[in-house]
């Protein structure tokens, strides 16, 4: 009986050592990775939404979606482990789209400021050459498919 009790105590001691190790391992292997992938998906979902709104929605909705996407991109810059140049490229083009949207609304000064931020963001991400010029950003955005509803002036 005493022998069995001793063995049970040794098992308990082992369990007390194993339990935190299991919790730590699962956190590292699953939870943190899922967290990183989740942050990346969250950023992609908001960016996708903003770009779809820019192409299809009224000016007010498109502007709000782009501002929200910019805020999310900037927040993720500090938080996301998997974030890279593609996300920074998306951020640059959010500024570019916002610039064209403000330009079409007659807000020339704001439009200029956003275009400058677009160029700076792409440079900051390490892009070089003509890709970071205002001309190139405008040209790429003009090739975007679908109706640029936000730019047609039908909106607020």
């Amino acid at each position, binding site marked *: 009986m005493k022998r069995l009790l*001793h*063995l*049970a105590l*040794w*098992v308990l*001691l*082992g*369990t*007390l*050592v*194993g*339990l935190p*190790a*299991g*919790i*730590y*391992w699962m956190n590292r292997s*699953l*939870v943190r990775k*899922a*967290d990183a*992938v*989740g*942050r*990346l*998906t*969250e950023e*992609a*979902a*908001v960016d*996708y*939404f903003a770009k*779809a*709104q820019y192409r*299809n*929605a*009224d000016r007010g*909705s*498109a502007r709000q*979606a782009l501002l*929200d996407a910019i805020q*999310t991109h900037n927040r993720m810059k500090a938080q*996301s*482990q*998997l*974030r*890279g*140049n*593609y996300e920074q*490229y998306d951020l640059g083009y959010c500024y570019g789209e916002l610039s064209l949207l403000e330009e079409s609304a007659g807000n020339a000064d704001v439009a200029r400021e956003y275009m400058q931020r677009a160029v700076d963001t792409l440079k900051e991400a*390490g*892009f*070089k*050459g003509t890709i970071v010029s205002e001309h190139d950003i405008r040209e*790429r955005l003009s090739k975007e*498919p*679908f*109706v640029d509803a936000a730019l*047609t002036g039908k*909106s607020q």
Partner: protein
Amino acid sequence: MKRIVWNSVAVIVGMAAGFAAGALVVGIRFLEQPNTHHYFSFVGIGWGVSEGAFDDNSSDAKDLLQKNLVLLESGMDPRSELDPRMKKALLLQAALTKARLSIIEKKAGNVDLATGYMAAAQANLKSLGWLDYSAVHIERVVQAHRSPLAGAPPVKPVSVNLPNQPTK
């Protein structure tokens, strides 16, 4: 000597049981109470897999899209603690998922179901401020436009020279 061996075996068994129990507790909590980021990791999987199946005309596409829709709607639930901005992004995904289901039902000859899904998609997109929410336009968007998580695009994108830097 024999006692030492038995005690060592008992400690090892205990450690293994403790390790498994710890991992199980975290795994169950992860599945039962996902936080926002974990929820989005599921959304990412659902988004990429269901859209990829639709684009490939897979026989599983309908089932996967319906499951994806349930996942998206759970995030949009009023009881969900997600940021309202994120809920709007999910609403767009839900609308496009319904449009894809409409296309599948139309191909299968289920006109009523197809009409129902498309009407729901149109109502969602109208509430998001879309100016053209006609069925023709939505179908065009869905068939020509792939999400960043659904694999390679069907049309060649404008080429981009990304700098050769590793991600963080």
